């Protein structure tokens, strides 16, 4: 059991941070299953990040007056219980409320696990494993959530967390760590935390928007989207060996990471087609940027600063408030752009139907079926296959109708891709803004 203690705590840290984006690919299923609106379902994501971001620093302040193992065990238990409630939630309100409690438990668990890992591994290795677990959890969250949603159900995302967290409770209690009583010696690292917040907002654009584009815009399954976005964590893992090879100074590493994320987001904004292959290289850039920045910034924000838990709380707060800011900026932009994309998409569809190599009466039938489906699916990127499936066409006309369906679907994909462009570019702007925050820091140090 003793050998499993630290790994269980590391997995718990990864789980809590993975939960930040784990439900992204499950949102369409949750929307349907709990009969929720798009606005409500977005709060499943926002509520967790907002509460985690706001609770992290107060939790860290409270930590100094508590027994670390009891504090951690309580947090992990609340996280596990709330995860179980999320899994059985029968309404969107219950799910959102449970996500808030899950975030409170998560905040306590993250702060507590940091000190327990330091007690188990020592200062350097303990902090490093805590930071790495966070980076991996953040990057892997959407992938894991997508695979579980496709393979089992959206509830499975929360069910699988319960046994791990339940096992982590005795693991936390097993660590002998004395209460950490340290006076507030250092101010929070504003620059590192602001950069971290901006990068989190930019990374939200990459992960959140990309899965939405793949599933909603290009009609891919959650599993396909999950496998596709796994490029990001893989590239994030590859970033460390690259950094070790070139051994850049930390500030250069962070600046390059911001630049890579911005470049990757520009690449995602301008794919030449709706082929998944065109997302691979931009995602690799984002992943490399993620791997180079988040752990460096977290380290910088915590390094040589006491009390450690409180500065860890600031980094958690910065990251998750960054996610919320990213969602707050990007959600209205891309929903408005998706709404605006309806007109050019409808016009492109009309153009192709008017010029289709079909007899006039078949064109009218196609137009009527499409009109019905477009009205029925007004709030989402439409699935045009349903319209064609309803048609009763002469067998001789079916190949032309099938070609028309392919061409129309391609137009819908084009319109959806175009609708996401500005949001990806705003994400790139956030990453460049993060890069800008580093410039004065570099100048001051060089003097």
């Amino acid at each position, binding site marked *: 059991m003793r050998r499993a203690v630290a790994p269980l705590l590391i997995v718990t840290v990864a789980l809590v941070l993975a939960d930040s984006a784990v439900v992204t690919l499950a949102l369409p299923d949750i929307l349907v299953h709990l009969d929720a609106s798009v606005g409500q379902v977005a709060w499943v994501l926002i509520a967790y990040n907002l509460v985690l971001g706001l609770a992290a620093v107060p939790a860290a302040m409270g930590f100094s007056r508590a027994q670390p193992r009891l504090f951690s065990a309580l947090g992990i238990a609340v996280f596990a219980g709330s995860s179980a409630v999320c899994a059985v939630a029968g309404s969107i309100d219950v799910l959102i409320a449970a996500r808030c409690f899950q975030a409170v438990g998560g905040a306590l668990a993250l702060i507590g696990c940091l000190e327990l890992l330091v007690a188990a591994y020592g200062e350097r290795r303990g902090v490093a494993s805590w930071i790495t677990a966070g980076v991996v959890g953040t990057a892997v969250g959407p992938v894991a959530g997508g695979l579980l949603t496709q393979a089992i159900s959206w509830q499975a995302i929360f069910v699988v967390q319960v046994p791990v967290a339940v096992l982590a409770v005795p693991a936390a209690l097993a660590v002998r760590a004395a209460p950490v009583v340290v006076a507030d010696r250092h101010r929070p690292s504003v620059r590192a935390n602001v950069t971290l917040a901006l990068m989190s907002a930019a990374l939200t654009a990459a992960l959140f928007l990309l899965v939405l584009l793949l599933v909603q815009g290009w009609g891919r399954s959650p599993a396909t989207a999950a496998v596709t976005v796994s490029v990001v964590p893989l590239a994030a893992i590859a970033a460390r060996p*690259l950094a070790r090879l070139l051994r850049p100074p930390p500030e*250069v590493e962070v600046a390059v990471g911001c630049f890579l994320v911005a470049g990757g987001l520009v690449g995602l904004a301008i794919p030449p*087609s709706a082929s998944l292959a065109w997302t691979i290289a931009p995602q690799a*850039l984002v992943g490399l940027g993620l791997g180079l920045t988040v752990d460096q910034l977290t380290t910088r924000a915590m390094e040589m600063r006491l009390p450690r838990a409180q500065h860890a709380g600031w980094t958690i707060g910065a990251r998750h408030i960054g996610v919320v800011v990213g969602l707050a900026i990007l959600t209205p932009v891309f929903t408005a752009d998706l709404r605006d994309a309806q007109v050019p998409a409808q016009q492109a569809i009309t153009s192709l139907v*008017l010029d289709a190599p079909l007899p*006039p*009466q078949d064109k009218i039938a196609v137009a009527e079926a499409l009109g019905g489906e477009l009205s029925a699916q007004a709030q989402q990127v439409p699935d045009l296959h349903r319209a064609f499936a309803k048609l009763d066409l002469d067998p001789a006309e079916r190949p032309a109708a099938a070609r028309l369906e392919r061409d129309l679907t391609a137009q819908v994909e*084009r319109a959806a891709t*175009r609708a996401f462009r500005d949001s990806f570019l705003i994400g790139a702007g956030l990453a460049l803004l993060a890069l800008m925050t580093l410039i004065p820091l570099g100048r001051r140090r060089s003097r």
Partner: protein
Amino acid sequence: MTGLHRWVGLPVAAVVLVCGVVGVQLAHGGGEYEPLRPADPCSARAVTSQAEGIDGLTERLVLLGIDGAACRLGVSREAFTLELAQTDSPSDAQIDALRGGLKSAVTRMKADGTLPPASALVDESLDSTDLNDLLKSLIRALPDSAIDAALKTDDVLVRAIDDLDLRTVLANLDDQDALEQQIEVAVTGAVKASLEARIRGLV
């Protein structure tokens, strides 16, 4: 590794990677992956039809007519088509533009020689009329030159377009029988009026 390499190695690699990825995306049409843009309805467009005879002629006329109407209204033909599809009561301006567009289409088809002579449409027209069989046989026995001399396709079409209640036509688009009935009445009336005008001209 020298100090300089440590400072520039990773940035140079990053610039190369980003420029490479974005450059390849742009070279393959990234940034231009957008929905089809509507063509200028005022520019001449080649239209074709899978149908033959009167159906084919009607489809080509309608396609050109929508272009003409959209050009008159200063919108794309796609926007005009969607406006008509999404309203139960088209405005007078839309109906006037559509009628004008259809008449312009007749003129254009006559000018480019794609309007068939009346004799080419007689057999098909007679099949769908309720004239008695003896009269149909008599008309079919007429030489094409006589029919073409008596009836000009463009004149008949323009008269039919003037007579058509376009609001009812648009409302009947999903009712093939009602649509055919309405067009038949308009074309028959136009044929009669065209013949009367020709006879009056001869007298």
